[in-house]
C-alpha cells in the first residue's frame, strides 16, 4: 500500500482512538457481567440478588456491587502458596488477559468510515488473514490456564488446569471447522468482508449454514469453560479449578480474561452468523450519505453489533442456570466422536453444494 505521510498520520491517530475506545469498552465487560450473572439468576429464581450498593441514595439495581467487589479484591492480601513456581505463578494471569484483548481488537465493530480522504476500518487490527490471526491468538489462552494450574503446587489446581486445557484444545478443532463453511460461502478470510457479504436478512450465516452455527455455539461454551462444560472449575469436586490458589488482583485478572473471552466469542458468533453490524432491511453503509453526517453508520453498526453480542452474553448466563454439568468422559466424547465428524461432513457437504450451484 502506497500511503502518503499524511494518510499514515491519520491512520495512526485513528488506530490509537479506536484502540482506546475498544479497550475502554472491554474493561467495562467484566464488572457488568459479574453483576448480570448475579441479577439474571436472581430473576429466574425469584430472589432479589445484589440490590443495595449504589451511588449516594440511588441504588440503581445494585449495579455498583461489582465496583465495590473490585476495590475489595485489589486491596486484599496476596497469598502465594508454599512450593509454588514463583516466576510462572506470577506470569499466568498475564497470559490469561492479553490473548482475549488481542482477538477483541480484530473484530469489525462497524462499517468502514470514508473520511479525511482515506478509508478508516472500524476494527483496530485489520489483517488480510483475519481468521488465522484469531485462531493463532486464541490458542494462546490455553497457556495461562496450564501455567496457573501447574505453578500453584495444588492438586485441585493441577487437575482443573489439566481438564481445562484438554477441553479447550479438544473444542478448538470443532470451533475452527464450524467456521469453514461461512468462509466457503462468503469467499473471504477477512471478517469485515464476511459482514459486508451478509447484507440481506436471508444471507446471514445462521440461515445459509445452520449446522455450523450449532457446532460453533456448543464449541463456544466449551472454549470459555462455561456451564454446562465448566468441569475445569466444578465447585463440588475441584474447589475453584486452576485459580484455587490465586488471590486478590490476580484472581480478578483471571475473571477479566474469562469475561473478555466470552464477549469476544459472542461478537464472533454475531459477526459470522448474525450479520455483525448489519441491521436487517437497512443498508448501514448508506447511512452516512443519507444523513449527511460522517460516522452515523459507524454508530448504528456498532450499537447493532453490541446488541447482538449482548444477546449471546445473556445466553451464556441463561444456559448456565438451566443445563446441568456434563461428566468429563461425556464432554470429551461429544467433542471428539460427534462434533469433529459432524464438522467434517458439514465442510464437505457445503463444498459440494456450493460447487454444484456455482460451477455447475
Amino acid at each position, binding site marked *: 500500500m502506497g500511503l502518503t505521510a499524511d494518510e499514515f498520520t491519520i491512520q495512526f491517530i485513528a488506530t490509537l482512538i479506536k484502540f482506546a475506545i475498544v479497550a475502554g469498552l472491554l474493561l467495562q465487560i467484566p464488572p457488568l457481567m459479574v453483576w448480570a450473572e448475579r441479577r439474571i439468576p436472581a430473576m429466574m429464581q425469584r430472589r432479589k440478588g445484589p440490590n443495595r450498593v449504589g451511588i449516594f441514595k440511588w441504588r440503581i439495581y445494585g449495579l455498583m456491587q461489582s465496583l465495590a467487589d473490585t476495590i475489595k479484591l485489589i486491596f486484599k492480601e496476596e497469598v502465594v502458596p508454599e512450593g509454588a513456581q514463583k516466576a510462572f505463578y506470577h506470569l499466568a494471569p498475564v497470559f490469561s488477559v492479553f490473548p482475549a484483548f488481542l482477538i477483541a481488537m480484530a473484530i469489525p465493530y462497524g462499517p468502514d468510515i470514508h473520511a479525511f480522504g482515506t478509508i478508516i476500518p472500524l476494527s483496530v487490527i485489520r489483517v488480510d488473514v483475519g481468521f488465522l490471526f484469531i485462531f493463532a491468538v486464541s490458542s494462546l489462552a490455553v497457556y495461562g490456564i496450564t501455567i496457573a494450574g501447574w505453578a500453584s503446587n495444588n492438586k485441585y489446581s493441577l487437575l482443573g488446569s489439566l481438564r481445562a486445557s484438554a477441553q479447550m484444545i479438544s473444542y478448538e478443532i470443532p470451533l475452527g471447522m464450524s467456521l469453514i463453511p461461512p468462509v466457503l460461502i462468503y469467499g473471504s478470510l477477512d471478517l469485515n468482508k464476511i459482514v459486508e457479504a451478509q447484507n440481506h436478512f436471508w444471507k446471514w450465516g445462521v440461515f445459509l449454514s445452520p449446522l455450523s452455527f450449532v457446532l460453533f455455539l456448543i464449541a463456544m461454551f466449551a472454549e470459555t469453560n462455561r456451564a454446562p462444560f465448566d468441569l475445569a472449575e466444578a465447585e463440588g469436586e475441584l474447589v475453584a479449578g486452576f485459580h484455587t490458589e490465586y488471590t486478590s488482583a490476580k484472581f480478578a485478572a483471571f475473571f477479566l480474561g474469562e469475561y473478555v473471552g466470552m464477549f469476544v466469542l459472542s461478537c464472533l458468533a454475531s459477526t459470522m452468523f448474525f450479520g455483525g453490524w448489519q441491521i436487517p432491511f437497512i443498508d448501514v453503509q448508506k447511512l452516512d450519505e443519507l444523513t449527511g453526517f460522517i460516522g452515523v453508520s459507524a454508530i448504528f453498526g456498532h450499537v447493532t453489533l453490541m446488541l447482538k453480542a449482548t444477546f449471546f452474553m445473556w445466553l451464556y448466563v441463561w444456559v448456565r442456570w438451566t443445563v446441568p454439568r456434563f461428566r468429563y468422559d461425556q464432554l470429551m*466424547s461429544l467433542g471428539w466422536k460427534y462434533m469433529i465428524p459432524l464438522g467434517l461432513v458439514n465442510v464437505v457437504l457445503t463444498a459440494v453444494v456450493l460447487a454444484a450451484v456455482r460451477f455447475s
Partner: protein
Amino acid sequence: MNPYIPVLIVLIFGLTLGAILSALAAFLGPRNPRPEKSDPYECGVPKVTNANEKMSVKFYLTAILFILFDIETIFLYLWAKAFPQLGWFGVIEIMVFMVILVAGYIYVLKRGALEWD
C-alpha cells in the same frame, strides 16, 4: 500503514495490563504472612503429598491428536479461501484429503484413544 503495527500496540497494552494487575496486590494489599496461610489449599487438612505427581496419559494423547487435527483445520482454511479459483478440482482434492484423514480418525477411534473412563 503496516497492518501489524496495531497488533504490536495491543500486545504491549495487554501485557502491561496483565502485569499491572499481577503486581497491584503486592503494593496495595496488606502483608502478614504465616506458615498456615501459605499452605496449598486442601480443604483445611494438612497436605498429604506433593501436587506435581503423575497424571493420566490420556491428556498427552489428546494433545498429540489436537496438533494433528488442528493443522488439518488450518489447512482447510487456506483451501476454503482458494475454493472459487479451484472449482471442481478443489472439491475432488478435498474429498481425497478427507478420505485419508477419516481413515486416520477411524484408526484412532478403533484403538480406543478417544475413550475416557
